[in-house]
């Protein structure tokens, strides 16, 4: 029965993503106004606090506020660093970790509403016959450090400086001001407030303009690039800090065929070429979102596995692979299905 409804891991993951999209975007409306105060307020995904219907909050807004209002303030006043200052931050990280511990970076690949929106757009892009733009092994390294820069500057640095009074107060939550999830999730609740640019000060205007332009770029780029924003998302780097200590792991064994196959690399939406070329810890790269596509598209038995406490939850198999490629290419192009624009173009050309 379950196999009929969810014939592939991707289908199962997509169902979870849609479910979590409702929880993270409309959860407050579905589960009660105050749900957001009760669940965690430290979710390892971009569940936006600016969305008035959200079911939980992203860890990043809590971190920025605590650095802004508590740690920065306390440091500059040279007050005693008491449990009233650092404990709340540690609790936030602890609550985040209690969620993260079990699912690891699957929060990115299975729960994050922004990831779901981008994946849906990419699927639309396939139907529209748009090209696939990828980062190759030679240039993917250029974009990877950006997520760490986003975390250090926008999530940690500027809020702390604002709390210390060094930076302007508007830098209290700079990441939220540029985060495309803020605009995407609020638009999904028919709320246009966040896409309207704040004009009160130059800093507000600058951050808002940057955020809106980034949002516009991401929603168009997502038609041709897989998960364009995820690659620079500070939550990807934040989650990477704890990646190795979770019992949920991606495991890859060494295999002779890997050097010339490379199908898993094509299947990876984050262009992690290490998955095809490395094995062991190096194959479970910091950018991995545990989406499981590399496992689905590995044509050899048991070479790639998703394990929980060492127990395989899902592992590669040749039979599964053969079924999988009949439905969709590793790059996500559906087979034997209508490609809207391509077909229209071909019809026009006679």
């Amino acid at each position, binding site marked *: 029965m379950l196999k009929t409804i969810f014939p592939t891991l991707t289908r199962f993951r997509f169902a979870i993503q849609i479910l979590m999209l409702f929880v993270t975007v409309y959860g407050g409306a579905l589960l009660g106004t105050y749900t957001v105060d009760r669940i965690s307020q430290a979710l390892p995904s971009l569940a936006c606090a600016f969305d008035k219907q959200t079911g939980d909050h992203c860890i990043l807004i809590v971190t920025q506020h605590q650095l802004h209002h508590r740690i920065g303030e306390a440091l500059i006043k040279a007050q005693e660093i008491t449990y009233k200052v650092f404990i709340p931050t540690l609790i936030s990280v602890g609550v985040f970790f209690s969620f993260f511990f079990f699912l690891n970076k699957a929060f990115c690949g299975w729960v994050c509403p922004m990831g779901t929106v981008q994946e849906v757009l990419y699927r639309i892009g396939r139907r529209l016959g748009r090209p*696939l733009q990828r980062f190759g092994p030679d240039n993917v390294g250029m974009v990877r450090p950006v997520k760490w820069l986003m975390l250090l500057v926008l999530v940690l640095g500027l809020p702390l400086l604002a709390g210390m009074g060094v930076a302007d107060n508007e830098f209290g939550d700079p990441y939220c001001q540029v985060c495309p999830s803020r605009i995407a999730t609020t638009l999904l609740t028919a709320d246009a407030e966040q896409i309207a640019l704040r004009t009160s000060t130059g800093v507000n205007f600058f951050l808002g303009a940057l955020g809106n332009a980034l949002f516009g770029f991401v929603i168009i780029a997502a038609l041709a690039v897989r998960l364009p924003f995820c690659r620079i998302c500070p939550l990807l780097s934040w989650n990477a800090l704890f990646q190795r200590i979770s019992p949920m792991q991606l495991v890859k064994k060494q295999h002779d065929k890997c050097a010339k196959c490379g199908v898993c690399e094509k299947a990876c939406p984050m262009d992690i070429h290490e998955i095809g070329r490395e094995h062991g810890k190096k194959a479970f790269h910091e950018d991995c979102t545990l989406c499981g596509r590399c496992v689905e598209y590995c044509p050899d038995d048991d070479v790639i596995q998703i394990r929980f406490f060492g127990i395989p939850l899902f592992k590669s198999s040749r039979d599964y692979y053969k079924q999988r490629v009949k439905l969709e290419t590793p790059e996500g192009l559906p087979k034997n299905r209508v490609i809207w624009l391509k077909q229209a173009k071909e019809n026009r050309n006679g």
Partner: protein
Amino acid sequence: MRANKLARVVIPVFSLLFVSSGYGAESAVVAAPAQQVMAAAEHAGHGDHAGAGGMSGMGGAGKSTAWTAFPTLKIRMGGESRERRVATVVPQGIVASSIDAYSNNPEDAMGHRQLPLEMAGARLDKPESGGFHWLAAREEQDAEVRIASTVQFFSDRGGKNPTAMFMQQKHELEIIPQPYPREHSRYRANEDWKFLVRFNSKPLANRKVLMETMNGTKAELASDAQGVVHVRLPDDFKAEEPKKTAGSHDHGRRSSDFVLATEYAEGGKHYLTAFNASYGPDAFYQRNLAMGLGFTLLGMIGAMPLLRQRRDAKQATGAKPAMAGNANNEDA
């Protein structure tokens, strides 16, 4: 040729941005309502992130406020040393010896406390559980009963749902928010909010409810058959730039106060209850939708080249488009 194409795209975008900035200035003026002449005591501040917080500013216990004759409770975050987990509650327009404080965990030992009133007001320490606190002061003289109430929110993770606490009977005549804004949200101008009017836990239908704001708006409302009064908060803020300084921690938010009050007589007694809270300007105050859309469009245009098929890739693979998905990997 390519430059011409670029110009055709860029010029309209910048024209749109230019026009929209003019539109923004105009809309800010239009937003200023007539009754703003009376606005006098606006203030910035947002409590503990909440907007969901109470009213800021201080006054002497028992003194009536300039903007309303109804009893109110004013709240200032922090005690004498500005601690974050402490609030000071000051009753205004009502004579009371203590403040009743209910947390959203009624079973907790701190679920209901009576806070003694001192010169500076009543000190509310955040208990271990519960982010929302219902605060009330009661005065009874002869056959007159006056009640002031408000809600204070302390940022709290995993706190209980406050609905049960809001709905438990705390006084005879009550005005209860349905719901109260949660964290990262607050009452704002031009928004509709519901409040339940009830006496001894029974809804009061068709009851007159008066609303007054610190900015000078007065309105008469009425509860419906279920005892619910629908309140649209007025957009009565003055159009002026908020003052902000680095490290002020107030996010530059403007806010003002409103109070809802109703009366009821039963058993030879006359009851007057008031619920007050703070509210902010309209959601689009100092925001410009056209400019927002303009910059979004700019970002979209920036991503457009990604949607084009690469000609060199086309030539390299013959007539076949450079769609990596076309590869048949079945035989890998």
